């Protein structure tokens, strides 16, 4: 019962002070994004064909960036977007092209 009171106190504090976020909505958003990230990680691992996996990895990077925004970390979001969704798939696709070229 004490924990319920603590949660209620946090809700009231979040509504009364300016520049804070409604706690209920943030909870739902974070739980949804966490579940999506877990599903995305499973999808990345279970895709066996490397070229397709690069595309799935790029989508996973965008999902992670959304999760980091929900955790109130915009700097890490920017880094993850640029590195994980643009630069890393570029490197991976170039290496895959090199390997496939030699197998011909």
């Amino acid at each position, binding site marked *: 019962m004490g924990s319920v009171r603590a949660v209620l106190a946090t809700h009231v504090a979040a509504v009364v002070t300016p520049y804070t976020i409604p706690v209920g909505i943030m909870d739902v958003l974070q739980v949804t994004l966490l579940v999506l990230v877990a599903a995305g*990680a499973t999808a990345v*691992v*279970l895709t066996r064909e490397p070229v397709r996996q690069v595309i799935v990895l790029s989508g996973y990077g965008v999902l992670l960036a959304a999760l*980091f925004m929900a955790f*109130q970390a915009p700097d890490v979001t920017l*880094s993850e977007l640029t590195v994980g969704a643009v630069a890393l798939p570029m490197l*991976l696709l170039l290496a895959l092209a090199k*390997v496939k070229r030699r197998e011909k």
Partner: protein
Amino acid sequence: MHIFPFVVVVYILAVGLYGIVTSRHLVHQIMCLIVVQSSTYVLLLGIGYKTGAVAPYFYDIPVHTPAVDPVVQALALTDVVVEAAVTALLLAFAIQAHKRFGTLDPQELVQLKG
């Protein structure tokens, strides 16, 4: 909600490690390593989060607004850049391995000698 993010962290780690162990292609293994590293970002940011707090940037909000922890965010930022550097080098090694041994299957590469 108290330990759910941390359970997700352990799940992502387990899934990534499973991908590394049962992989048949070096580049697939490298991508599973990326997934494993991403679990540490979620862990770092999950530790520093405060309920009802905003991002620690004070150019349009008053300075004493409750904000989340900036130190773990700096650590996670460093982590992302290091991941890119490590992946680039691993890809270079994979290319050279393919040139020398002709195969990218890690379970066959173990048995080749020189």
